[in-house]
């Protein structure tokens, strides 16, 4: 099979089929519960891509890109872990710690020009995410502690730390529990005048995807990561330091997740609320699975998830279908991507039932 055919039939076609099947099944859930799936999906497409902007409302498609940005960065980080056979469920916590560090640098450090302050704030987020993930990486490498569990636990600790800091030491003087605004010199600027919110984070995300491609396909480290992921025993025989690779991969994965947190708060919020983007880190696991380790695939998956996240509000508003259905669609997508056997068996049993009947109808 040529590389192109392998791409299509090995990854792209099953991924697209999974998405369609998931939309179909979620539509079925809507029908059963008395909602109109066609109205819901057309509102979703409207809200995600087609609605034009007004003086107060940003353009739908640009908002989809705004939502897709953190998904893309996070999913690249998670995919990096997957490549080494590591399951970084801690993206959410790393994102929170990254956001906390970025905002702290953003409002505590004053009097710097933007071309120093902004990179510094971004770097703080990257380093915080990296260090947070490295706890799990270090425990995996030195104590064989399963990263799945440690990263879950680190998520909850990160939530609590952010909650404590925002309610306590870093709280601003107003009524709502949040930090003060960051200095204008730390703001990641928008690309278009308000109400548009499209910001430079999109280009950072794309740069991250390009970097991911070169790391995985054109560098020794990428080869090492992939070898460890394929078969760590063989990798060890080949002289690769597996534990060191785990540590480095986890750190890089966390660095990307920290960057996602930094971008979110420096571009969109410009302060740190107690809770923001709850669940981005978990949804991004789905994005990474759907993207199947390919940066273009991950970018398309991020766009899809960004569209669903962004369109859901309008769907709820205009078609009256709860935005929770998006999570159902996402769950179906991952299950079909991760267990292609299920999708195949479902489809085969449908075909098996439909084909003979259709053949008969054709004869008659």
């Amino acid at each position, binding site marked *: 099979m040529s590389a192109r055919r392998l791409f299509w039939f090995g990854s792209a076609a099953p991924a697209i089929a999974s998405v369609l099947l998931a939309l179909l099944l979620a539509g079925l859930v809507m029908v059963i519960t008395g909602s109109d799936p066609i109205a819901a999906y057309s509102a979703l497409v409207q809200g995600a891509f087609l609605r034009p902007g007004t003086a107060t409302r940003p353009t739908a498609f640009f908002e989809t890109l705004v939502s897709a940005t953190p998904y893309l960065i996070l999913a690249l980080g998670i995919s990096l872990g997957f490549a080494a056979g590591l*399951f970084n469920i801690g993206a959410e916590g790393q994102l929170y710690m990254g956001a906390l560090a970025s905002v702290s640098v953003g409002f505590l450090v004053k009097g710097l020009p933007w071309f120093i302050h902004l990179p510094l704030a971004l770097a703080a987020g990257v380093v915080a995410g990296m260090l947070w993930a490295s706890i799990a990486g270090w425990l995996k490498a030195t104590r064989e502690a399963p990263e799945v569990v440690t990263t879950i636990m680190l998520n*909850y600790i990160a939530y609590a730390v952010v909650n404590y800091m925002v309610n306590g030491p870093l709280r601003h003087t107003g009524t709502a529990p949040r930090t003060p605004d960051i200095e204008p010199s730390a703001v990641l600027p928008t690309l278009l005048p308000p109400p548009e919110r499209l910001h430079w984070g999109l280009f950072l995300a794309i740069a991250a995807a390009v970097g991911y491609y070169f790391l995985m396909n054109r560098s020794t480290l990428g080869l090492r990561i992939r070898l460890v992921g394929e078969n760590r025993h063989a990798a060890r025989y080949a002289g690769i330091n597996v534990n060191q690779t785990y540590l480095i991969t986890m750190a890089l994965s966390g660095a990307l997740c920290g960057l996602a947190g930094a971008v979110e708060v420096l571009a969109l919020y410009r302060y740190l609320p107690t809770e923001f983007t709850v669940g981005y880190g978990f*949804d991004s*696991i789905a994005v990474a699975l759907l993207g199947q380790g390919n940066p273009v695939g991950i970018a398309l998956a991020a766009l899809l998830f960004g569209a669903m996240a962004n369109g859901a509000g309008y769907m709820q508003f205009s078609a009256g279908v709860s935005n*929770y259905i998006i*999570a*159902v669609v996402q*769950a179906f997508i991952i299950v079909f991507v991760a267990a292609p056997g299920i999708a195949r068996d479902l489809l085969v049993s449908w075909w098996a039932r439909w084909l003979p009947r259709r053949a008969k109808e054709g004869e008659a």
Partner: protein
Amino acid sequence: MIESITEVLVRIDYLFLLATALRASTPIVFAALGGIFSERSGVINIALEGMMLTSAYVCYKAAVIFNSPWLGLATGVLSAMVLALLHGVISIRYRTNQVVSGTVLNIFAAGITGFLFRVLGAQESAPYLPNMNMPLVRDLPLLGNQPLLTWVMLLMIALTTFVLFRTRWGLRTRAVGELPRAADTAGVAVNRVRYVNVMIGGMMAGLGGAFFTLHTVSSFTPLMTSGQGFIGLAAMIFGNWTPLPALLAAMLFTVPQALAGQFQMFGVPLPYQLISTLPYVLTIITLAGVVRRSTPPAALGVPYVK
């Protein structure tokens, strides 16, 4: 500040404190027991959270529909078992990564319960399960006037310990989780044992979910289990995959919370957010093997291929 802390420490009703902690431990221990059954047979189960959430919703809805907390409980537990069966099919039959399967089910549970809650609406409150407040029982220290499910939880600890370590089924379960090839050679149907244990795990998580809607409050809110399933996972690990230590672990997590609550009541606020991280910090320390080696089942997470 120091005076006030000692003052509070003297004035606290410690029996009441322990009783509060025991009650708060109920869903955590159920989740831990669910994890123990599932993981002892070799199947990682991070979907306990989703199973609890699903059960919490279904218990609530069914209790309202049937106007009976008992039928609500039965339906809710059944729903968690269906989810567990799905976990089994995805991870045992289709041999999908068990962590992926668990993640899927958690996302699915959050989505479907939130969706149904919004669509089917919910203003009515569900009928409660009773507390153990009969004469005589009512006056027992610690156990008196506790929710029914707290008693069931204690019973299940005893039952789980007995089943796992004193019955043939328990031996098979542990064999399948440690060395499935050997168990298979000895004639044990590895995957069947795993299916059943994952579903027993679902039942436990279902009972834990019921605690949220049939005892604590009589209504449902989306995502109301708020990570208790993961704390259960932490209790399971901290208790080294055994039932009674899992309860002690859960108490270790809930007593400080209850204590923080008491301090709050006496007007001495502690940073409760940081106290709430205790379960997670302790679990990480346990997994790091600082105190003692944690010994998960050897075949945990590895699908069995004949």
